[in-house]
């Protein structure tokens, strides 16, 4: 496990791992298992339906525990679809750290399609973070197509932080969250594309239960000739509150399309959407230059803050 520099760097980038993590973990490397640990309350098991992936079962009342399930691909030409199902009991408070890193120095495409399905029990809180990162000087593509589907039972909540850092040539992301009574979903999405990369994020939040709340905060930067499409949708089917906010910085010859949609199927649903696309404002650069930063440093500082 983590037996070379590439592994260690990828795992640090995508899951902030500086060694064997505390708590439950499963490290997937090049289509195989590179390390696994279950705990008393968090069981990680192979699937029994023949599909690649794992089942994670978290016992009722599990609090302040973490589960790391990073995926790394270090070979060129590895293509996989992996299914991970999470069964989280009632009254839990857990942190799940996922993420995928691809190091591709070859000519062939490497692709990871991760399909995650969460069943979150009553009054449980989940903090889920997922970072995607690609590197390597080969001509082979680095592709990631994550699907995340979440079912929140009464009073349950998920805070989902997704970040695509750099180096992912193509991504098609699909996220669906179904909120029951008094459930809450907060999604923060951070995305940076450069070169000729393409990224598409399709998101649907269904606020089905009375008192359900949903919030999407999406911030992206498109550099060079990259292309981004966002399609966040919030559907209010009960007395609920939903807010979608998409902000993008566009640079170079990039293209961004942002299409937030809100649908109310109940008179008590309160839904708001905001979307903005623009370049870095000249007065922001000037202000930071008056603090002694060069134009390049100022631009970098603005982008880092925006995507933080």
């Amino acid at each position: 496990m983590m037996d070379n520099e590439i592994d260690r760097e990828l795992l640090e980038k995508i899951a902030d791992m500086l060694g064997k993590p505390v708590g439950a973990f499963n490290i997937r490397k090049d289509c195989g298992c590179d390390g696994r640990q279950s705990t008393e309350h968090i069981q990680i098991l192979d699937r029994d339906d023949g599909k690649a992936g794992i089942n994670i079962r978290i016992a009722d009342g599990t609090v302040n525990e973490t589960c790391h399930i990073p995926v790394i691909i270090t070979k060129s030409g590895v293509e996989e679809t992996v299914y991970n199902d999470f069964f989280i009991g009632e009254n839990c408070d857990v942190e799940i750290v996922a993420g995928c890193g691809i190091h591709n120095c070859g000519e062939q495409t490497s692709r990871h399609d991760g399909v995650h399905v969460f069943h979150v029990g009553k009054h449980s809180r989940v903090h889920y973070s997922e970072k995607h990162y690609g590197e390597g000087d080969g001509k082979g593509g680095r592709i990631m197509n994550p699907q995340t589907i979440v079912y929140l039972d009464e009073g349950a909540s998920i805070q989902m932080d997704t970040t695509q850092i750099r180096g992912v040539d193509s991504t098609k992301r699909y996220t669906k969250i179904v909120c029951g009574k008094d459930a809450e979903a907060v999604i923060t999405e951070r995305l940076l594309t450069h070169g000729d990369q393409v990224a598409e994020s399709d998101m649907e939040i269904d606020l089905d239960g009375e008192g359900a709340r949903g919030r999407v905060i999406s911030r992206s930067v498109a550099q060079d000739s990259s292309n981004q499409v966002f399609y966040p949708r919030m559907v209010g089917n009960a007395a609920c509150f939903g807010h979608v906010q998409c902000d993008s910085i566009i640079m170079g010859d990039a293209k961004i399309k942002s299409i937030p949609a809100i649908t109310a199927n109940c008179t008590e649903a309160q839904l708001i959407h905001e979307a903005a696309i623009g370049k870095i404002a000249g007065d922001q650069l000037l202000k930071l230059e008056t603090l002694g930063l060069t134009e390049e440093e100022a631009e970098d500082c603005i982008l880092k803050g925006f995507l933080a």
Partner: protein
Amino acid sequence: MLELKHISYAVREGDGELGILNDISLTIEDHRLVVFTGPNGGGKTTLAKIIMGLVTPTEGQILWNGQDITHLGITERARLGISYGFQQPPRFKGLTVRRLLTLASGDETLSKDRCCQYLTKVGLCANDYLDREVDVSLSGGEVKRIEIASILARNSQLMIFDEPEAGIDLWSFARLTETFQQIHTAGTATMIIISHQERIISLADEVIVVGDGAIRHRGSAQEILPQILADTLGGCPVLTKEAKAQ
């Protein structure tokens, strides 16, 4: 010491040129508090921006501590000890007040206590603001006070403030004038403040009235304030008529 020599600035208008500043020469000694005042559109902000490098003069020379900085960029001037508080500061999504103050100070290890001191001087409580983003969630007055705090954190040799009082409530304004007075008394920095406020003008070692792109008057606050009041009244035919009628 700051020296402006024969500074002119003009912009293209149709086939001709429109003069914004015309042959301004000015010397400001170290540790002085100088107020630029005068009518709107008279050229005060342009003159201040020329000192910071935000606007390039069409003619003239700028010397800072004897060094010709006329052709230096904003960053280089900032690094030589010149700072500028904007009249309408920009907002930044994602940049926190703490990060802005840290960048301004140039000290990546800037402590919370130091941040607190800068914010207190502009009437803000650090606990309420340090982790907030300098974005549209802040009011105009709050952003303005954070802007001034960033100049205090910069702690440069020459501090330029463009209408620092604009958008600030009366209580915070009183705290702000105290801060300017403290900096002046400490004798650690030269200050140029663009202002129309009598309380700020009365703090000045020298008041420079800029109008129609030129220096109209120069003198102490005691000399200049009565002239400003007279000009204000004299400049308005309605007010003059009413005054005479009384």
